[in-house]
């Protein structure tokens, strides 16, 4: 028994309890920050105690949802420790480890930038890489930079680690090449392909020779069935695939999950093709832990939504639907799910704190255009409400259908006033706007605080 570690852990737990008791936003990272400061190597030691090992999940988009789905699948067979509130830096991981007394399996979503260090410290049993999109260049730097760091981190993985990658993402497929322990997942249903690559598509050019890829099917951004006409670099054969996908508007989806261990039907209560990707990622990493397809399908069917990603919240006679937006690729997919049954009123909240991205230029890469002619009214709010308002006006929203109300609570009340009883208000917030919004909704007793375990 490591006495120093024990003392540090006890101290960190106490800080977490005090922070929660004081009602200061859950204390999800505070104890970890302390432990992380005191002794970074404690993460290595605490992780090494997990007898079933550690799973790390990273991606630009969908890591919180994928992790929460995996927790639902794996929760029956393991005593889990996981960072459920999305605190995904090393300090958040430390916090989760501190609070886990009897866990056998660690399940952690990890920030793209923090992945190399997390790999180095936790020696994971499984690493799942979901996608790489252009995201908050002010924080992460260029896509190629993140890819390069991941490449180096993957090269240093122990031979016994299973690497789970999205084969539909050219950079990730290439990164997995040559490794023995690899599971490649993807989508296979050209009926859901986009007619063309989106404006915001990132990895349009062959990772090997720079020629533009040709897509037999592009599903989400640059994810799809690609082939380079010059050098022949193409999507690898998929080990795990979603086929015969049916999307049911804002309600959910159904698909057939094909795995080396057989096929199973999956029902998902989350909308959009991007959530099918998240589900297949969660399924794949579970397969890497020897979970059966039946258990996977059951876990996915039971899953509702991860923190703030897609929530339906009753608010008196009306319902609030919250869909997080944070970068062009993610926001485009959210908007795409709204195209079926456009909401009469949309509240969009744009903040520019560090967690949102201080550089708000990304909103210009979001394809608002197809939605705007059909939506009745849009309320723009948040710290950069005027900037957002301008984006919408240039996107074709007429002045009389736009209201700019920077103050969030005021904007929320105005939006609720605009929707009829019995109908839904759809809110698209950036990360810190989502946190503030949840604060307001908690105060009004519409939702429980997130550190109690969700809505």
């Amino acid at each position, binding site marked *: 028994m490591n006495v120093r570690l024990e003392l540090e852990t006890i101290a960190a737990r106490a800080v977490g309890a005090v922070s929660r008791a004081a009602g200061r936003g859950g204390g999800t990272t505070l104890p970890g920050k302390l432990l992380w400061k005191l002794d970074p190597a404690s993460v290595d030691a605490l992780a090494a105690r997990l007898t079933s090992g550690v799973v790390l999940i990273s991606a630009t988009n969908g890591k919180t949802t994928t992790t929460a789905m995996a927790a639902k699948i794996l929760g029956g067979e393991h005593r889990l420790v996981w960072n459920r509130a999305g605190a995904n830096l090393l300090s958040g991981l430390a916090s989760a480890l501190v609070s886990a007394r009897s866990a056998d399996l660690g399940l952690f979503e990890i920030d793209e930038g923090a992945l190399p260090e997390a790999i180095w410290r936790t020696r994971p049993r499984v690493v799942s890489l979901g996608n790489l999109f252009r995201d908050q260049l002010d924080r992460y730097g260029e896509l190629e930079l993140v890819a390069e760091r991941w490449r180096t981190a993957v090269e240093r993985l122990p031979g016994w680690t299973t690497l789970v990658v999205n084969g539909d993402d050219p950079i990730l497929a290439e990164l997995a090449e040559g490794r023995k322990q690899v599971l490649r997942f993807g989508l296979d249903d050209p009926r859901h392909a986009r007619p063309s690559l989106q404006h915001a598509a990132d990895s*349009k050019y062959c990772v090997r020779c720079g020629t533009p890829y040709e897509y037999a099917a592009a599903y989400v951004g640059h994810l799809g069935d690609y082939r380079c006409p010059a050098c022949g670099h193409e999507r690898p054969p998929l080990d795990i695939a979603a086929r015969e996908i049916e999307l049911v508007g804002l309600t959910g989806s159904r698909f057939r999950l094909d795995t080396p261990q057989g096929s199973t039907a999956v029902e998902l209560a989350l909308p959009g093709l991007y959530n099918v990707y998240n589900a297949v990622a969660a399924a794949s990493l579970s397969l890497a832990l020897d979970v059966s397809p039946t258990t996977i399908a059951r876990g996915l069917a039971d899953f509702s939504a991860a923190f703030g990603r897609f929530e339906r919240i009753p608010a008196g006679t009306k319902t609030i639907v919250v869909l997080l937006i944070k970068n062009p690729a993610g926001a485009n997919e959210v908007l795409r799910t709204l195209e079926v049954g456009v909401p009469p009123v949309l509240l969009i909240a744009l903040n520019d704190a560090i967690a949102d991205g201080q*550089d708000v230029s990304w*909103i210009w890469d979001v394809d608002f255009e197809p939605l705007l002619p059909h939506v009745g009214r849009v309320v723009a709010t948040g710290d950069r409400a005027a900037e957002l308002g*301008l*984006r919408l*006006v*240039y996107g074709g929203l007429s002045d009389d259908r736009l209201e700019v109300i920077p103050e969030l609570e005021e904007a929320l009340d105005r939006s609720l006033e605009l929707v009829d009883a019995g109908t839904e208000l759809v809110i698209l917030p950036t990360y810190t706007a989502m946190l503030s919004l949840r604060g307001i909704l908690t105060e009004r007793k519409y939702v429980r605080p997130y550190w109690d375990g969700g809505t």
Partner: protein
Amino acid sequence: MTIRVGHLYPEYLNIYADRGNIAVLTRRAALRGHELVVESIGIGEQMRPGAHDLLYIGGGQDREQALIAPDLADKSSTIREAVAGGAALLAVCGGYQLLGRGYRGRDGSLMPGVGLFSHETVAGTTRMIGDVLLECELEPGTRRRLAGFENHAGRTLLDSGAEALGRVVHGFGNDGESGLEGCRVGRAIGTYLHGPLLPRNAWLADWLLAQALAHSRGDTAPTLEPLPDELEAEAFRVAAERARERGGRR
């Protein structure tokens, strides 16, 4: 009137929502009864001399910039002649660097640029990221402010005698030291302020449109009738506030 815009490599250089700048020019021209016709100029496509009143080049990630660099070298003299002939131009971020004399890597090698702007960009080890506020004097006696966001590793060093776009009020600017930002040659402007710059800085959009109209008519730049610009003013106010609070911090 018709304003003919040549948009260089929109498929490659679009990292910071450059289409937003084009959208602003299009709308503000239309509100004054002018039509903006935007032609995309890609790799291997010829640029006809005198065919454009306004040229636009945006920024890309290193990889995309490397992909277009050889083609841009072929177009160098045509671009320089267009500006010498009175065409307006806006170059943003990577495009701004590419239009200088060249980009010097950490190993000392020089990747040659178009040579329109009298500057050289040197690779830096840290990125200069954040909100920026500039003061410009494009017309003698008229000072205007520009608010934007910068994100660049390159340090752009202006030759002595080269004219900057503006003086840095808050932020890093060309190199983080000189207090200067951007470059101007005649009706051509280059800047690190991206994402898109024009929506909240409507006066610069109008300045560019007026210069483009001047080229199109072979006349002096006209005065455009003012627009209400309430949202524009509010977006500028908040962006300028951000630059004051957090611009130029490493």
